[in-house]
């Protein structure tokens, strides 16, 4: 369990430093089963910070989401650091961003939060209904205790926990400057059973599934924007010259978009599942990423986001790489 007082004290300590510009963490949401990501700029605000199983979002996304205006002539750019609270899965995003040299390691202060799983709001809403009040959730043994509209409710952890946590192999942050709680023990492993199950279908069955899913897409690009690895300044799908993907929403362009999105995460996806969580039309986007994760692991024995010293997968090669289908 994370002691919120300790978390806030550490955050305060960091925010009081002169060389820190902002701290990204979680605060209580305004309603429902999810917290709200929050960017603090002043030590006086640290009481807003929380950590509990509602903290599903990946704060690492918000490091690269910040748009910097051009610095006016005669002024110095603000080089102060960004502090960020991360769970184990979120920390992999930072590792991968560092692997890709998205920013300097010195530019960020990572406060690691060992995590024992977060709640999937969709599962919780199905079980306990919608609520216009924020729900507090605490973990007691293998149960979650929720306060929904003032009433205490209980549910087995396994039924509410997010899918990503069911196969979490990195509950403890992989990169950090300080931990705000003691490390926890790993409780799960990833056998890629979901990938195998899907891959067992015929091409017709697969396409029938994706045709239905992709045609739902409204191209709001939230899956792209929330992704901590999608930090290009100009995205290929919105590029006009040349225009690879058209803005029209039809099955052709939507499919092309989703293939491109998944492809650009090949060997980079760190499985925080944010893309799938944010989708307003419930497209199981991670099914594509999971397939690539598995293939990358099998073919190239590579796992993104675990080793800061690693080279990006597609920026390196091994002469012995598999080439079974090449004529």
């Amino acid at each position, binding site marked *: 369990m994370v002691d919120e007082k300790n978390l806030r004290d550490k955050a305060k300590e960091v925010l009081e430093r002169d060389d820190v510009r902002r701290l990204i963490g979680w605060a209580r949401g305004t309603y429902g089963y999810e917290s709200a990501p929050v960017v603090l700029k002043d030590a006086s605000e640290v009481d807003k910070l929380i950590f509990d199983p509602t903290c599903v979002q990946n704060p690492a996304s918000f490091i690269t989401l910040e748009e910097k205006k051009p610095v006016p002539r005669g002024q110095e750019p603000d080089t102060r650091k960004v502090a960020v609270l991360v769970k184990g899965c979120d920390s992999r995003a930072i590792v991968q961003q560092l692997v890709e040299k998205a920013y300097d390691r010195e530019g960020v202060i990572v406060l690691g939060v060992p995590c024992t799983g977060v709640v999937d709001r969709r599962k919780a809403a199905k079980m306990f209904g919608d609520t216009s009040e924020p729900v507090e959730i605490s973990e007691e043994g293998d149960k979650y205790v929720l306060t929904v509209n003032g009433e205490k409710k209980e549910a087995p952890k396994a039924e509410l926990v997010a899918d990503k946590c069911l196969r979490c192999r990195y509950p403890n942050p992989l990169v950090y400057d300080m931990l705000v709680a003691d490390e926890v023990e790993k409780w799960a492993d990833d056998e890629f059973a979901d990938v195998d199950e899907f891959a067992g279908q015929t091409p017709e069955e697969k396409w029938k599934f994706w045709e239905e899913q992709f045609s739902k897409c409204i191209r709001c690009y939230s899956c*792209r924007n929330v992704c901590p690895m999608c930090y290009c300044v100009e995205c290929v799908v919105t590029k006009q010259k040349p225009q690879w993907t058209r803005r029209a929403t039809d099955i052709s362009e939507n499919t092309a978009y989703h293939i491109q999105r998944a492809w650009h995460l090949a060997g980079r996806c760190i499985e925080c599942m944010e893309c799938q969580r944010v989708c307003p039309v419930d497209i199981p986007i991670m099914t594509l990423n999971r397939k690539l994760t598995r293939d990358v692991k099998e073919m190239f024995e590579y796992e993104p986001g675990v080793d800061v010293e690693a080279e990006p997968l597609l920026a390196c090669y091994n002469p012995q790489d598999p080439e079974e289908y090449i004529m």
Partner: protein
Amino acid sequence: MGDFKFAKDKMAEVIGALKDYQVLAPKAVGDVLRFQPVEDPAQVSLDYPNTNVPPKELMFPETETLFKYRVGQTDIEPEVPDASARRLIFGIRPCDALAYTIVDKLYAWDFPDPYYQKRREATVLFGFACSEPAANCFCPSMGGGPASEKGLDALMFDVGDTIYVKTLTDKGEEAAKAMGLEAAGEAQMKAADAQEKEALAKIKRTLDHSGIPEKLPSLYDHTMWERFSDRCLSCGICTFLCPTCHCFDIQDEMEGFDGRRARMWDTCMFSEYTLHTSGHNPRPTRKERTRNRISHKYSYFPEKFDVIACVGCGRCINYCPVNIDLLDILEDVKKAEVKEAKTA
């Protein structure tokens, strides 16, 4: 206008009787509801809080051809929808119908938009009163309500085994006749009244928007926007799923020698929305874009058209993945001191 009813288990027959109309009703793909043409009337169900994607897409489709052409030729074929092809939206929620009346004003303003207007003319709106409002509904604060009649041609109430239909316009009356409905009695009307009161009581969230339209312009430089924009993803969920958001992009597409000019949904939350060719962007960061979204809905639109471009459907709150809560922002707007420190 008239009061009618039909038995719930006769719904397929009632919809099937609408031979002269294309009937559109909510259809689920997985957990996601959208209005789609009814293929099998037996599949229509009225058991839902509201559709994920608002029915604005029926008047203003995600992608819509404006006209077609062929390379090297100078004739242009407009693709204006046929106003005589009648459609009936079965089960539209009162908030979404109210949204049409707001967007109507924009599309009727000076250069009337034939694409939107033709579709709108051809469509009959059969509303469905809410008995179980969702957690983030606040329609009564925006001039609507769970059984608001604004913009509707008929309003249905689910009263036990029966659906009570109250027709509100000639268009609605005509459709009700085509459905072959029987007359409703006192009992259904009373039940409907009771249901409306009950539903109203279930709506928890409220907004007092008085003063907001006048105050917003003075908060142009205010730091409060950053409190929300710092966690904004710059995605299009809030605007694409908003029943009153109406912005679009126009692009040309070529397929061999055939071409079309089409318009598609666009959103002020994307940075490329306002990006000039020169690279200059008048709204370069999420702060300006968030401010523009709220200001447009709550200040610029009412300034031009005398009505706030929001109906309180709660979709932008429900689907925002980072909990940017419209009501939260507006509470901050009300609290903000105009003199508060400007941004550095």
